[in-house]
């Protein structure tokens, strides 16, 4: 069964239609890249899956967004529960102004987990998964803000992993990083796909090509083409996709 599925989704900001009749299905344990020019709606669409758009006053949507076959916009869904299952990593590394340790356990603390053993275990496990353990294991009590940008971003990924989501949404996770840190984050994404379903928005087409299994091209709020990344980058079916991936857009 598909992990994520959107059916005929329309999104409005006030009177502006920013997503126009998009349907997509995403397989479990895969990396899907959303590409497209700025303002094409890919970030907005990504944020539908953990309902981060709900905070925008003028946001309105139609259609269905399903995770594991359940409509997440159903009245019975508690959005806090949903977000434990669907983690998110943002463009700019945004660790909390707390220690590295507190950053990781935040998700558990707000769930009311106090057992020190569980917290300690989670910190080690998540940092190892995010390939950060070796770099920070001796300074868990230091401020997370003292880490480098790339380490901060991997910390944010570790923080997300700590609550054991099944889906991870990434909104341009490497765009604010230098090439080396960016490559590390990419390798991490590649590793994580064995256990998680990952959706990544990126402006960097090479990044999409390198890390993803399937790629979806958005343009003007519409999903133009969604296919295996190999096809999108060697033989796209749609001319607009071809123009975009070859850099001849416009």
């Amino acid at each position: 069964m598909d992990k994520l599925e959107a059916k005929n989704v329309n999104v409005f900001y006030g009177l502006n239609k920013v997503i126009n009749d998009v349907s997509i299905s995403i397989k479990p344990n895969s990396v899907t890249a959303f590409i497209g020019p700025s303002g094409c709606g890919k970030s907005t669409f990504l944020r539908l899956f953990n309902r981060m758009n709900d905070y925008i006053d003028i946001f309105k949507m139609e259609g269905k967004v399903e995770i594991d076959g359940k409509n997440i916009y159903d009245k019975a869904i508690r959005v806090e529960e949903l977000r434990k299952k669907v983690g998110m990593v943002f463009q700019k590394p945004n660790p909390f102004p707390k220690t590295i340790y507190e950053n990781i356990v935040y998700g558990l603390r707000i769930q009311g987990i106090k057992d020190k053993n569980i917290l300690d275990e989670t910190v080690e496990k998540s940092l190892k998964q995010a390939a950060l353990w070796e770099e920070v294991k001796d300074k868990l009590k230091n401020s997370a803000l003292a880490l480098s940008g790339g380490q901060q971003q991997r910390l944010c990924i570790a923080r997300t992993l700590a609550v054991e989501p099944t889906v991870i949404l990434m909104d341009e996770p490497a765009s604010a990083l230098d090439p080396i840190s960016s490559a590390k984050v990419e390798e991490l994404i590649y590793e994580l796909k064995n256990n998680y379903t990952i959706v990544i928005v990126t402006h960097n087409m090479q990044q999409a090509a390198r890390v993803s299994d399937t790629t979806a091209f958005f343009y003007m709020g519409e999903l133009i083409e969604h296919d295996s990344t190999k096809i999108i980058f060697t033989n796209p079916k749609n001319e607009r996709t071809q123009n975009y991936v070859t850099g001849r857009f416009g």
Partner: protein
Amino acid sequence: MNNAVKNRIKDNAFKYFGIACTSFGLLMLAIFIGNILIEGLARIDWDFITNFPSRNPDKAGILPALVGTLWIMGLTAIIAIPLGVSAGIYLEEYGRKNRLAKILEINISNLAGVPSIIYGLLGLEIFGRIMGMGGSLLAGASTLSLLILPVIIVSTREALKAVPKSIKEASFAMGASKWQTIWHQLLPASFGGVITGIILALSRAIGETAPLIVIGALAYVPFVPASPTDEFSVLPIQIFNWISRPQKGFAINAASAIIILLLVTFVLNGIAMYLRNRWQRKVRW
């Protein structure tokens, strides 16, 4: 003369104009403080602080006024901080950003600019008469709380606004509720700003005279107030009272009392600055 030279002359001219303006302000302050110090410093001793007011300027002290000021500060803080901070949090985080919110926002900012004597009249009517508190400490503190509420609300909102949106998003994305996000992230991160606002508001309240006179604070208090329902005096009123007397000795007393009042204000401001710097060092974005 070409343009670059002209621009440089203009640039320099403005620089010296700015220096002149700044020195003018500093000079006035120096003259004022120097004057007060010369006149009043010699009069300050332990007796001056522990004596009650007296008809004899040499025996008069500020004890009831100083204690009254501390009482007023404490009560005002207890009343105004929870109200102001909560209102600030509500308006910034919970209130929907519609037209009503905008009107509310403008009015709160306007309230901060209302002359303090108007608050005195309001306090006299509502706290003094309708609620029957009379000229008590509680009535005074309530009135001053009203006076500084807008400042606390506005500064709380500004401090919350200064927390990057990314932190809020991160917290929500981790599955935190709104209250958890405010309690665990926004308040700790904005604590420095909130505290600074509170202390600046309190140091404004400490110098207020007019509203307290209006609600009936006494100029002559021969006792130390012991409970919130007692009548009271505060330092500014004591100063005002002494200044208006003809004897030279009271003028010196007033100068000495001003030094004490300035000291208290500076200490409060100092604490505010210390806390702000401390928190800013800790929280770097």
